[in-house]
């Protein structure tokens, strides 16, 4: 194809550039080793066989049915729940349910308390013993360490509560907009370097309800295959057509853009009204960063709009904490729609959209989240305002540097020990692959026994083969905490043989 921005020769250079780790886009996704894939499939096959056996025993009333039973099924109604998802939930998820969804009993800072729960019937029911387990927190999205009960932000939030009480008792458009909403939006727009911004009470709803406000039937949305569910639901609600392109693959995206402009709608060949490219700043399951410079080049060449979801990267990336735009040092006006959340780096809740004033004014009128959702609560907004102010001060810079330091140290040590770690070298989300379902549960339980609470994710959230543990690093983690975690990972990783990497030498922590 003549005239493509990234010809074949450029693609080879790009591959070499990605392996040369001095670049900002240095990412590594090692292939699954064959024996791990075989053992994973074997494990799932055995679980499936026993699942069928147990389902048969339950169906023929030899064993009692423990899960939710549809009472209308016996009366001749069509079943309310789909059967395959229930199969997985009943026979594989419930067996090891104690490693997921643990309730916590304190503020989710770097060190926190988990409630202890015991099960007598293999995780169908729990009883809470009343004790709590103290553990180091590697699961919370607390990138800058703002999840704390004391300090400037907490004091400001309490003062906000005392001044304005909890609820605003209205929507933004009907006597629900307060001074602090206007202040937050102006502060956020100055922080990001854009003309204007608008905030919402829920991050998921920001995506799901605002994509319909800007995209509609007759538009095309090109989204990355690893995009979050909120973006996909927003695309579906909007009524626009959408296609996915391979994860972070700019050649695939360019081919699809080219084809979209040349061919238009699938059957009628009418031209598309608008074309959007929807990407995320940092992908939370992969740890990879979007290729922003190439995306901006593509968007300018093909006249498409770029929507970037910076849920995990705002505050955590860039030398001033301003996200991926700051990380790559590009012009912020090149990204048309910047979206982000306050849940991860600011220790609060909610989401925002930022961009040109004309865009934000349009969203203010047309977005359902603005006209029907109640406006953000006072202490939550105060927490964000004080954390934004703090980020511009020297203490904020200290937090950003601490996070970057922790990220580089932790990732370097894990990779040097021989574990497979996905994603960009500088992203604070560290997914380490475990593959086998039994090893995943053993890892989680053994780490908790050693006082480290981690989040392991398996099949529905990730692909069937690639079950992983996702470490979320924080500026609140001190070097001794990271060392304790690394020692525990080293010990457990040796015991259950988690060193899968063939590109790096397997080493013990004491040999590094």
């Amino acid at each position, binding site marked *: 194809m003549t005239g493509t921005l990234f010809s074949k020769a450029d693609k080879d250079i790009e591959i070499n550039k990605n392996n040369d780790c001095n670049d900002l886009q240095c990412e590594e996704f090692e292939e699954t080793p064959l024996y791990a894939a075989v*053992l994973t499939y*074997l*494990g*799932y096959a*055995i*679980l499936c066989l*026993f699942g069928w*056996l147990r389902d048969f025993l339950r169906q023929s009333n030899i064993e009692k049915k423990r899960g939710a039973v549809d009472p209308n099924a016996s009366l001749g109604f069509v079943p309310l729940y789909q059967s395959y998802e229930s199969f997985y939930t009943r026979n*594989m998820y419930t*067996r*090891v349910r104690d490693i997921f969804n643990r309730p916590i009993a304190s503020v989710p800072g770097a060190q926190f308390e988990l409630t202890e729960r015991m099960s007598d019937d*293999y995780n169908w029911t729990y009883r809470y013993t009343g004790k709590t387990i103290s553990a180091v927190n590697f699961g919370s999205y607390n990138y800058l360490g703002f999840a704390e009960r004391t300090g400037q932000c907490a004091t400001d939030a309490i003062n906000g509560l005392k001044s304005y009480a909890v609820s605003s008792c209205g929507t933004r458009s009907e006597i629900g907009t307060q001074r602090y909403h206007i202040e937050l939006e102006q502060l956020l727009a100055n922080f990001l370097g854009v003309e204007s911004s608008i905030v919402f009470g829920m991050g998921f709803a920001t995506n799901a309800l605002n994509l319909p406000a800007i995209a509609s039937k007759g538009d095309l949305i090109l989204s990355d295959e690893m995009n979050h569910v909120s973006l996909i639901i927003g695309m579906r609600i909007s009524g626009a057509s959408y296609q996915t392109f391979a994860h972070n693959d700019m050649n695939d995206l360019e081919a699809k853009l080219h084809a979209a402009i040349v061919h238009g709608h699938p059957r009628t060949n009418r031209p598309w009204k608008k074309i959007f490219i929807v990407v995320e700043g940092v992908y939370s399951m992969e740890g990879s960063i979007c290729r922003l410079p190439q995306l901006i080049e593509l968007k300018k060449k093909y006249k498409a709009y770029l929507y970037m979801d910076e849920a995990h990267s705002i505050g955590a990336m860039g030398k001033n904490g301003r996200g991926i735009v700051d990380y790559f040092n590009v012009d912020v006006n090149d990204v048309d729609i910047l979206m982000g959340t306050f849940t991860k780096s600011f220790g609060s809740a909610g989401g925002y959209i930022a961009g040109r004033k004309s865009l934000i004014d349009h969203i203010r009128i047309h977005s359902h989240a603005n006209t029907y959702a109640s406006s953000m609560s006072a202490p939550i907004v105060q927490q964000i305002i004080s954390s934004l102010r703090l980020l511009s001060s020297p203490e904020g810079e200290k937090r950003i540097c601490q996070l970057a330091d922790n990220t580089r140290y932790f990732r370097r040590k894990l990779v040097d020990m021989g574990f497979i770690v996905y994603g960009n070298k500088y992203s604070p989300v560290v997914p380490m692959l475990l593959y*086998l*379902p*039994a*090893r995943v*549960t*053993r890892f989680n339980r053994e780490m908790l026994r050693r006082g480290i609470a981690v989040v392991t994710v398996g099949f529905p959230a990730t692909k069937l083969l690639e079950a992983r543990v996702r470490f979320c690093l924080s500026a609140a983690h001190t070097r001794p905490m990271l060392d304790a975690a690394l020692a525990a990972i080293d010990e457990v990783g*040796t*015991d*259950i*043989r988690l060193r899968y990497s063939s590109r790096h030498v397997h080493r013990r922590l004491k040999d590094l």
Partner: protein
Amino acid sequence: MTLNDHPTFLRHKLSYTYKNCHWKTMLSYIRRFFKFIHWLYLQYLLNTALYMLEPWERLLFSTLLFAILSTALYSALVFLPHHVRSMIQFYS
């Protein structure tokens, strides 16, 4: 994976001295051996996903596996010599 590659063995090798009396070292060797057997059993449970199953399911699966493997082994031991000999006769 030999006995010498096992992680606890590597660690304890460095702490071995000649000053221990014989029955104590025998005991520590036996203890290490049982730990190694337990570790092998754990590997079996993890790699076949039996770790996630209830004890009676583990017993069922292990019994079936043992039955199949022992039948295969017995048949091999009884029939292989005769088969190999007749194959050699057929092709020579």
